[in-house]
């Protein structure tokens, strides 16, 4: 979330799209209800199904699964065509005025530079025109045909209400009603918040779904404002923490991009990742990359890392290829992986295309499952009747199940969707021989280090020299880890403006990332968490709810990254002169001498407004990007069909077969072939969660099982009539990858939609059942889903694919 849970209460309009907050986030949803009750806010829900969020909404609009960019592109067109944008904001705080290379273009569904063989773009022309002064050229009148504003206007002019309605299936009057409600928040004293979740991410165009919304929020001037922002509701108490801490291979902790084979040495690596300012006077905060990275290396390797050995850059693994979750299972499926550690992860259920995942796990030599529960994954090798077929005699994988404690049986931190890191205390001891995760990993590490010390190996140094300063090496404490991640001064840290002034004494915990250095004098395991455990102690354990202004900014509750800031980009809540756009919801303001107020300012404290230091400090431009070349499939989001589409073509580009689905999405050999066709699988399927369950865990809990005991799928009344299916019948749902059987729930809440001249039915597939647990046994829903992901993040396309359905 750029904003936070409590801040939702400050919104005038809450849009729930690409998510179902009432069901997936019922506790956080209280703030939506609060906004409705106390501010008179309106709630709008756009979803293929009339969800429990829709049940308490003021307006609901249906949409075909996988058509969100068409809808949102239509909103952009509506805002521009009807002049419903926050002009001053757009002009000052976005790259609307920036001039783009004249070679950039978009034709017939493809951007300039497409390479069909590689399924990727050469982005050479997706860039700013640079002036002789070394900065990007701008046209403040926004009239230049190559300025971002004009290019954007042209790009989205195609998304007329007629086209949008035809592509999305949303009735035109409903679409226009939503546009009108959204447009009302272009006023400086009105804001909209958007709550989304996996309904946007789990698509082959997932990142662009979100980006389209970000563009809308920028056009409306809702970023940085109380009650605004782009708010990703995370699906697990600590999934924000796991992302920040980077327990995956694409980045290092704190979103530092991981080195690849091309980064031959530290200098090359740092050079490529340290951006240059694109406009004068900007903070260009990314220029501090070397400080963050060096402090990370000091945290990992301690005294072994120093300036004269390049902080042991050579010890870091360098990526030779992709290692995201789909890439990992592809590799495993090809038999190129020996072992797999599976900690708090149930991939048999949560990675797309179960048959492929099952086959892949069967090719491992060993699988280690660290989990409090007997997960489905840990029994992938065992037959469970019709629900999971496997023959142990054919599977050689050795499976080790290491019982771990659950979160309530350990002490530590959670980082919630609001980016607030909160300490939690142990409530009970774990059962039996279960151990805390840090005990399991501590024991493993100490043993592995022993083996390396004794036997050597290909590259023993990174293991033997890893900083492991814990009091009990086999059991690092949560406190030790939190202090290490936050960071400390190794030697005295001096003020760069005054070399005699010591800002932090050697050995002290650091107050924040501003003190990180690239000279080896500081260590921090994750720069964005720096300051959570300062000399003042464990700030994540703070529980002071006081909120003197009533805006919900409880700055002494836990610690929010970065820098305890609760609303990101909050400088943009003020006009360029430093006055709040909406004085009633002032977040910060310029006092005449400094920035201050109700939040930690997202701005250099002494940056005078007349200096023109812009609010989006993490970009070299200082402003937010309406045109974003970093995206792999185009600088402007474009509608592409899901890889399994009910249509014969992309109705936006009916004549270009190359532009049907995301042209830059990665598809593995063998997977393209098992995409189903509408002729055989005529119905759009989408998977989702129900409030009664949490993913694949709570099927193991009695109360949850009582509340939602048995697997079902949902279909509309029209489809049910066509197929002769009655409410409560057992049905068979089949995709090109597998089949599941479940009870049919026939409902008015899913409607047939008119899409590009044909009737499209939706089959809704809740995901919570499986063959392990106390619910009635069921099929894992990913039996049906395709093995393709978002082109930028590789999040699997769980939300839009094709199935057939018939009575079982």
């Amino acid at each position, binding site marked *: 979330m750029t904003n936070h849970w409590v801040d939702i209460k400050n919104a005038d309009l809450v849009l729930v799209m690409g998510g179902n907050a009432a069901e997936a986030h019922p506790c956080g949803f209280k703030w939506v*209800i609060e906004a409705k009750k106390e501010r008179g806010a309106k709630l709008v829900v756009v979803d293929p199904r009339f969800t429990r969020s829709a049940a308490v909404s003021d307006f609901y609009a249906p949409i075909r699964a996988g058509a969100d960019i068409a809808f949102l592109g239509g909103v952009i067109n509506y805002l521009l065509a009807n002049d419903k944008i926050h002009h001053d904001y757009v002009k000052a705080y976005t790259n609307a005025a920036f001039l783009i290379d004249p070679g950039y273009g978009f034709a017939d569904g493809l951007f300039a530079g497409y390479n069909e063989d590689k399924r990727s773009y050469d982005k050479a022309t997706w860039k700013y025109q640079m002036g002789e002064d070394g900065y990007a050229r701008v046209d403040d009148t926004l009239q230049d045909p190559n300025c971002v504003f004009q290019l954007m206007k042209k790009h989205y002019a195609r998304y007329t209400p007629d086209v949008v309605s035809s592509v999305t299936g949303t009735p035109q009057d409903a679409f226009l009603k939503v546009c009108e409600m959204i447009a009302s928040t272009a006023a400086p004293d009105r804001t909209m918040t958007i709550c989304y979740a996996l309904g946007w991410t789990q698509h082959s165009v997932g990142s662009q779904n979100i980006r389209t919304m970000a563009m809308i929020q920028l056009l409306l001037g809702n970023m940085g404002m109380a009650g605004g922002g782009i708010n990703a509701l995370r699906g697990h108490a600590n999934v924000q923490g796991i992302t920040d801490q980077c327990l995956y291979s694409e980045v290092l902790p704190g979103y530092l991009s991981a080195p690849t084979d091309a980064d031959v040495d530290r200098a090359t690596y740092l050079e490529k990742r340290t951006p240059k300012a694109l406009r004068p006077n900007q903070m260009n905060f990314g220029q501090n990359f070397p400080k963050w990275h060096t402090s990370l290396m000091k945290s990992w390797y301690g005294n072994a890392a120093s300036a004269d050995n390049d902080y042991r850059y050579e010890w870091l693994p360098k990526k030779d290829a992709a290692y995201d979750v789909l890439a990992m299972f592809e590799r495993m499926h090809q038999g190129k992986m020996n072992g797999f550690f599976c900690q708090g992860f149930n991939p048999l259920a949560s990675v797309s295309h179960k048959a492929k995942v099952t086959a892949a796990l069967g090719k491992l030599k060993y699988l280690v499952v660290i989990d409090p529960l007997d997960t489905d994954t840990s029994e992938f090798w065992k037959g469970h009747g019709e629900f999971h077929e496997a023959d142990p005699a054919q599977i050689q994988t050795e499976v080790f199940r290491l019982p771990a404690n659950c979160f309530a049986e350990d002490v530590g931190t959670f980082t919630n969707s609001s980016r607030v890191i909160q300490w939690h205390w142990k409530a009970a001891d774990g059962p039996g021989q279960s151990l805390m995760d840090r005990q399991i990993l501590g024991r493993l590490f100490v043993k592995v280090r022993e083996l390396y010390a004794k036997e050597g190996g290909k590259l023993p140094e990174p293991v033997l020299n890893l900083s492991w300063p814990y009091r009990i090496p086999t059991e690092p404490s949560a406190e030790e880890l939190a202090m290490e991640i936050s960071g400390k001064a190794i030697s005295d840290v001096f003020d760069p403006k005054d070399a005699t002034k010591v800002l932090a004494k050697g050995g002290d915990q650091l107050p924040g990332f501003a003190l990180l250095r690239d000279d080896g004098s500081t260590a921090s395991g994750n720069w964005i968490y720096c300051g959570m455990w300062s000399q003042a102690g464990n700030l994540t354990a703070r529980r002071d709810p006081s909120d003197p202004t009533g805006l919900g900014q409880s700055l002494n509750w836990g610690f929010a990254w970065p820098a305890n800031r609760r609303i990101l980009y909050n400088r943009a809540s003020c006009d360029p002169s430093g006055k709040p756009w909406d004085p009633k919801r002032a977040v910060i303001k310029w006092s005449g001498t400094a920035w201050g107020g109700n939040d930690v300012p997202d701005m250099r404290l002494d940056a005078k407004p007349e200096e023109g230091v812009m609010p989006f400090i993490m970009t070299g431009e200082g402003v937010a990007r309406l045109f974003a070349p970093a995206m792999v499939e185009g600088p402007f989001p474009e509608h592409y069909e899901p890889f399994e589409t009910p249509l014969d073509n992309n109705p936006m580009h009916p004549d270009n077969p190359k532009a049907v689905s995301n042209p830059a999405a990665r598809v593995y050999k063998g997977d393209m072939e098992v995409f189903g066709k509408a002729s055989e699988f005529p119905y759009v399927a989408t998977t989702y969660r129900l409030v009664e369950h949490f993913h694949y865990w709570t099927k193991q809990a009695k*109360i949850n099982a009582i509340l939602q005991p048995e697997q079902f799928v949902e279909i509309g009344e029209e489809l049910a009539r066509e197929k002769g299916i009655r*409410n409560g019948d057992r049905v068979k749902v089949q995709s090109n990858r597998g089949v599941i059987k479940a009870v049919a729930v026939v409902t008015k809440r899913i409607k047939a939609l008119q899409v590009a001249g044909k009737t499209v039915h939706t089959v809704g597939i809740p995901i919570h059942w499986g063959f392990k647990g106390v619910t009635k046994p069921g099929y894992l829903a990913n039996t049906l889903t395709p093995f393709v992901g978002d082109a930028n993040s590789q999040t699997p396309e769980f939300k839009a694919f094709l199935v057939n359905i018939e009575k079982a």
Partner: protein
Amino acid sequence: MALQSLDIQRRSATTTPAPQARETTEIAKLIDVSACIGCKACQAACMEWNDVRDEVGNCTGVYDNPVDLTENSWTVMRFAEVEENGKLEWLIRKDGCMHCEDPGCLKACPSPGAIIQYSNGIVDFHQENCIGCGYCVTGCPFNVPRISKKDNKAYKCTLCSDRVAVGQAPACAKVCPTGAIQFGSKADMKDYADKRITDLKSRGYQQAGLYDPQGVGGTHVMYVLHHADRPQLYNNLPADPSISPTVALWKGVAKPLAMAALGLTALGSLFHYVMKGPNEVSKELEDEMERQAEAETEGERENAR
């Protein structure tokens, strides 16, 4: 569950005067249907606080689970899809005991002290006195009590009388994430409801209103409904509930008659008689009650299908 810290105002099949020295505040639970997301946290909390667990059931084609109230499920969410003029509404109502001011169950109950009403308005079953006759089921205009097959006792929501007795809100109200379940004095709950109704009217629900049916003297569980003019939309919430004529006749006419006839007898034997009285109720009335009880059980089976 006997709770002596709450004064008992009425007791089934008993005429002992109620204690009156202490002043009690009338309490109420307010269920704001317009803020309910049907998350069933209230059902989970009810199971946990009261240590009741139903069977793991089946999906019957609806989100309702367990599909009906049982001796182990004292509250359930009922989901109704209502479509009018092309506009769909998913009306989700938390069902359970309404804690009537004039409780039909208590009036119908022949067993002394099996059903009591506290001075704060809570109607509670004391299973140790329950004889399992099922008259409470017949007497209830909301079809709430259920007889356990295990022990042949009647069960229903206690409004967490044990929690309320020590100043705590009922478990369901405590956990409700959206504040759809509010708890407090009945007067405060009505004030709160007024605000919600004003808000709903401003959003186009012209018939929004409070459900506090007077046919049973008002209730200590009330609803804010978007369509207060048509409570039946909410899975057949009765529009104008009242105590069945059989029960009304029994307690309204038959019992005073019996009392009058006994007017001349000594006070001690009066108490003795009244304590026993219901068991001596006319055979016809008893048969009628039983027929109704059976019919209702049959009706539930139909509904469950």
